[in-house]
């Protein structure tokens, strides 16, 4: 406050004698941003810094400091703090967008090199890791089967649990289930893999298979399905339930015929997002499905391929050709997950319950 003149304690509390305050012009911020980027590029080139990351950090730093200094000179300390906070918040946002943009850009650019119908329709059966050629057909088959099996286990259990929690749940059991569903959301995927490993393979003595992987994936999927279904069921207005019950419809038929159909859009969205989440899981697959470069159409017997695991293996193989394949597989996986995501959101919007308005 440049306007208050502290003469006596009593006068200190007086309001500023003017409502005006010196303000930076509107163009100050964009100009400053441009200037900091230019300066950062200059410094980067001058000092011979190779990494763009550094350029970005320098630019951000210059901008934040510049905004603070400029504002404290022109507008005063409080406004300067406010500007500082604003520019920090903007910088954090850019910090989040940059990695996402870089990741998608690199995946598309490097992945499109060997991505082709051939790549999608052939396996790695007769191709050595260091040689070019080959494809991901076996991995796609494996991932689709494993995810489908996992969904077959997780969706019914998840749905019914959510119904229990929302429609029936009271008392200690419901509280315990709610708490452990939350805790289950946080189980590391490798732990789920170790669990199935310990009882299915080490104790019961079964072999590695797609089914074993699917069991671990279903453990990761269940809490996600429960949570999203719960949210959706809670959105169904109580009046609907009461209207149906008052007509003498039994509760279970009310749930099946009234509650679930009302929420079905949201539930589908939740399930698709859960599928998208487990489709990219590598750790449990690594422990339970093993690796198979050939197409194996039977998930219950023998090792299978898997898309995320394929990326890991091709990366580990460490040759130029295998890197290309890793990126192309990453592109396929991201594409698959993004399509699922978009479709899920589309369904959510299309089937959104029209609330009373």
């Amino acid at each position, binding site marked *: *406050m440049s306007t*208050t003149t*502290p003469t006596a*304690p009593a006068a*200190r*509390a*007086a*309001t*500023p004698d*003017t*409502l*005006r*305050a010196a*303000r930076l012009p509107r163009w100050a911020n964009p100009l400053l941003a441009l200037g900091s980027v230019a300066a950062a590029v200059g410094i980067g080139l001058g000092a011979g810094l190779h990494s763009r990351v550094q350029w970005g950090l320098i630019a951000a730093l210059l901008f934040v400091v510049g905004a603070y200094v400029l504002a404290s000179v022109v507008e005063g300390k*409080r*406004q300067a703090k406010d500007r500082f906070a604003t520019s920090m918040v903007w910088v954090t946002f850019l910090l989040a967008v940059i990695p996402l943009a870089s990741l998608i850009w690199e995946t598309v650019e490097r992945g499109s090199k060997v991505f082709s119908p051939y790549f999608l329709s052939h396996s790695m059966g007769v191709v050595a890791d260091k040689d070019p050629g080959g494809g991901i057909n076996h991995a796609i088959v494996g991932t689709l089967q494993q995810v489908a099996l996992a969904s077959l286990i997780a969706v019914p259990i998840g749905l019914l649990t959510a119904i229990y929690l929302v429609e029936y749940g009271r008392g200690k059991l419901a509280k315990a289930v709610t708490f452990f569903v939350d805790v289950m959301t946080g189980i590391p995927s490798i732990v789920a893999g170790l669990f199935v490993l310990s009882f299915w393979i080490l104790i019961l003595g079964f072999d590695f298979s797609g089914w074993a992987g699917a069991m671990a994936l279903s453990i990761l999927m269940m809490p996600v399905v429960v949570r999203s279904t719960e949210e959706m069921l809670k959105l169904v207005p109580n009046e609907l339930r009461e209207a149906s019950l008052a007509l003498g419809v039994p509760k279970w038929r009310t749930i099946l015929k009234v509650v679930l159909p009302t929420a079905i859009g949201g539930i589908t969205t939740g399930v698709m997002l859960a599928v998208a989440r487990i489709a990219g899981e590598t750790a449990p697959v690594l422990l339970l499905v093993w690796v198979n470069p050939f197409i194996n159409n039977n998930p219950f017997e023998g090792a299978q391929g898997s898309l995320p695991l394929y990326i890991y293996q091709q990366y580990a193989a460490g040759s130029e050709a295998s890197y290309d394949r890793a990126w192309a597989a990453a592109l396929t996986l991201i594409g698959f997950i993004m399509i699922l995501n978009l479709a899920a959101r589309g369904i959510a919007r299309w089937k959104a319950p029209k609330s009373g308005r």
Partner: protein
Amino acid sequence: MAKRIDVSGLSAYYGSHKAIDDISMTVEPRSVTAFIGPSGCGKSTFLRTLNRMHEVTPGGRVEGKVLLDGDDLYASGIDPVNVRRTVGMVFQRPNPFPTMSIFDNVAAGLRLNGSYKKAELNEIVEKSLKGANLWNEVKDRLNKPGSGLSGGQQQRLCIARAIAVEPQVLLMDEPCSALDPISTLAIEDLIGELKERFTIVIVTHNMQQAARVSDRTAFFNLSAVGQPGKLVEIDETERIFSNPSVQATEDYISGRFG
């Protein structure tokens, strides 16, 4: 200390919806001006244009002039932060900061505006709490959270918080609508005392309250739902309640509509 407010040609919008249309009026210093009118007539919106709080709501926008002793609040180069410090506000629901003690609540505005010595701060907080007729009730528990007080006490705490920064004008947006009759009476008495020092504008749904506390009363109305609110008339409170010059005012006051 208190300042005069001259409003001319003021309209306020929410996005493309016009909430109030072309309002002009004068608010005299050291007096209480009450805004009355049916729900949705824009009296609260208008109140919030007087300290530039309206533009805080998403899509909120204002046209026209509000002169505070000749300074236009909406002129370029005016800092809304300074405006809000000069024109204090008390809200419908008491809203002391829940994480702060009673003392810190009153001192919150002061602390924004520079550093004070502990003794100075004590003096101003005591003065403000006394000004809000709350000192005797809370002097032994200044370090307890403000949310532990009763509704009426909380609202007086909010008034103390607002007057601690010595504003020129005090805006009150239905300050008693969430309170019981006894607390309401305490606030109304307080308003009578505060007008010695501040220009006070109060929005109220309660016509008896307007008649009891205000010197001048403005009646707002809207021609239909969805239409912008307009100022029907503003006059001495006595005249508005005994012999208003517009028929609509009389209808509203006598309870024939609204």
